[in-house]
Every structure is written in structure tokens, then in C-alpha cells.
């Protein structure tokens, strides 16, 4: 099943083992590659009301599926110690949190601020776009690969992105292909 979800819907989801039916952790940070347009992994919190950060992380390869109610892993061994995980997941660049980033066109116009990341989930995690709080007010969506560059402060996007700001997620799905075609991407 193809399912669009935002990163904030994924954050806080329990991580559940398929074979054990146990909730072994929950999602803390969502880490993605803006270049590859895919989920790279997640960091974890321990389960429990006041439990804090977990040492272990979950690289995307170890995720069995991401659904609306849980992130599924095969068993507890799917959780990786930092030394066994890719560096991007084990030591995420916390200063590169894109939430609240200004979305600027290369021409220098601000389209708004990043409110969320939109992913196509299921057995893999593909990033399809960003949800933004539009400069003029209201919510909008811009398709990926939109950004020319990303920092923890701003997202620089091609000028034509402005034409592809969508009002809803349904529109985003349709816009992604056309947008890619206009950018000359496969």
C-alpha cells in the first residue's frame, strides 16, 4: 500500500517487532537525504511516559515497514548500536533540522517556512516533498527534488517551484512527476 505521511506523524510512533509483538522504542528524529530523496533512518526514544533518548538507532535498511500506527522491525536485533549504524543516522547533524527553515527561490523570493517533510511510506521511505507555511499565510506543499541546497537555516529552490506550490497532499502526488519533468530529471 502506498501511503503519504508527514515526518511529524512518524515521530512518536512506536517501533514494534513483527516476531515479538513488543514495542521496543519510539521514533525521535527523522533523518532523510535531500539528495537521494529518501528516508535514511530514525533516532529513537525509549518507551515509557518519561523515558528519554535511546542510544540505539534505526537505519532505513533495518525498517521492515512504516505504517500509520507503527514502525515495524523484524526483531530487537534490528535496532543498531551507534557504532554499527551509518554515521548519518548514528550521529545526525542536529544543526541541520529543516523544520522552520526559510524556503527561498534562487531569485530571492521567500515561499514560506518548512513545516514538515512528506514521505511515501510502506516498505521503503521515499521523500516526495515539503509541507510549508506559506509566506502569505496558509499551508502549502512543494515537491522534491525542489532544493538546490539545504542548511539548517534555509532551503534554496529553483524559481519554477513557485508554480508548483500545492494546496493539498493529493495535488502534491500529481505535481511531483510534472515537476521532475520540468526540471529535466528522470
Amino acid at each position, binding site marked *: *500500500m*502506498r501511503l503519504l505521511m508527514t515526518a511529524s506523524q512518524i515521530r512518536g*510512533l*512506536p517501533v*514494534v*517487532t*513483527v*516476531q*515479538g*509483538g*513488543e*514495542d521496543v522504542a519510539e521514533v525521535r528524529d527523522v533523518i532523510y537525504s535531500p539528495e537521494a530523496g529518501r528516508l535514511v533512518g530514525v533516532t529513537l526514544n525509549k518507551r515509557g511516559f518519561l523515558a528519554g533518548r535511546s542510544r540505539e538507532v534505526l537505519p532505513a535498511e533495518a525498517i*521492515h*515497514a*512504516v*505504517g*500509520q*500506527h*507503527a*514502525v*515495524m522491525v523484524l526483531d530487537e536485533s534490528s535496532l543498531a548500536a551507534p557504532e554499527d549504524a551509518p554515521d548519518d543516522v548514528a550521529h545526525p547533524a542536529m544543526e541541520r533540522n529543516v523544520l522552520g527553515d526559510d524556503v527561498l527561490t534562487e531569485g530571492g523570493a521567500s515561499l514560506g517556512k518548512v513545516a514538515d517533510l512528506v514521505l511515501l511510506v*510502506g*516498505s521503503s521511505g521515499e521523500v516526495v516533498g515539503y509541507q510549508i507555511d506559506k509566506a502569505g499565510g496558509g499551508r502549502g506543499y512543494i515537491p522534491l527534488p525542489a532544493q538546490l541546497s539545504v542548511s539548517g537555516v534555509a532551503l534554496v529552490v529553483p524559481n519554477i517551484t513557485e508554480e508548483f506550490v500545492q494546496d493539498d497532499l493529493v495535488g502534491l502526488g500529481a505535481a511531483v512527476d510534472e515537476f521532475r519533468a520540468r526540471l529535466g530529471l528522470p
Partner: protein
Amino acid sequence: MSESFQRSAGRKVMSRSSAKELGAVSHLLVDAQQRQIAAVVIGRGKKAQLVEWAQLSGFGPDAVMVVDEGALRPPADDRERAAAEGRLELVGKRALSERGNELGKLDDVTFDADTGALEDLLIGDRRVHAGSLLGSGSYAAVLDESQEPSP
């Protein structure tokens, strides 16, 4: 004969060798991979004891017969302790697909009273073959993706 978790809860447990009443069924511990009842939990709390399925001479409609009361033992590992505390009880547990979507609540589970093999899982008005069960624990019973509602 088909039996159900709901119906068998509270059924008295008797010793075949001494004809003494040993207690009542509180929980059934399931081996999800084998789709089989592994053990019967008798009593609750700190006094809860287990008897393995192989040690039963019959799982009858009026009583569960244990070969000998010596077969009763305290929980031996974490999973058995969790079962004794009722944390692994299948009935009432959320059913989750292996895709991470909730399918509902497990209302009841049926099994073959002769073999202890699980038959069907009842989720709302759906009856799912136990072959779909991939795992079960304190958080959820996990079913294979064929149980996902079609989009």
C-alpha cells in the same frame, strides 16, 4: 473440538491423578510462530503457575485436566512471567499488520481443544485464519500483510 479463549477463561483445572481442583484458567500462553498454545496459566498474581500443553490429559468443556499436579510450575523466564501477569493475553490486544497499520482489536481466538493449535482470530466482525499470525507480545499481535484492508 473447537474451543475459544473467551469461553475457556476461568475454567477449572483438575488433577487427573488426584482428582483435586488446582485452580482456574487465567491466561493461555501462545507460541505465535507455531500458532499453538504453549502453556496454560493457572491463577493470578504472584501465585500464578504454568502447565505446558503437553502435560494436559484433556482440555474439556467443563474442566482442564492436568496429568499430575507435579506438572504445575512457576514461570521460568521473562516471557512466562509476562504471561503470568497477563501482559501477553491475546484477547483485547491490538492487531497490527506487518505494514504498521492497525486492523482492530482481537476479540477472541479459537483453537483445537485436542491439539492446542490456533484456528481463527476474531477481529471485530472479521474472522482471520491463524496462519496470518506472525508474532504476539505485550504490545500487539502482528498479522501478515494479506490482512491489510485493500486501498
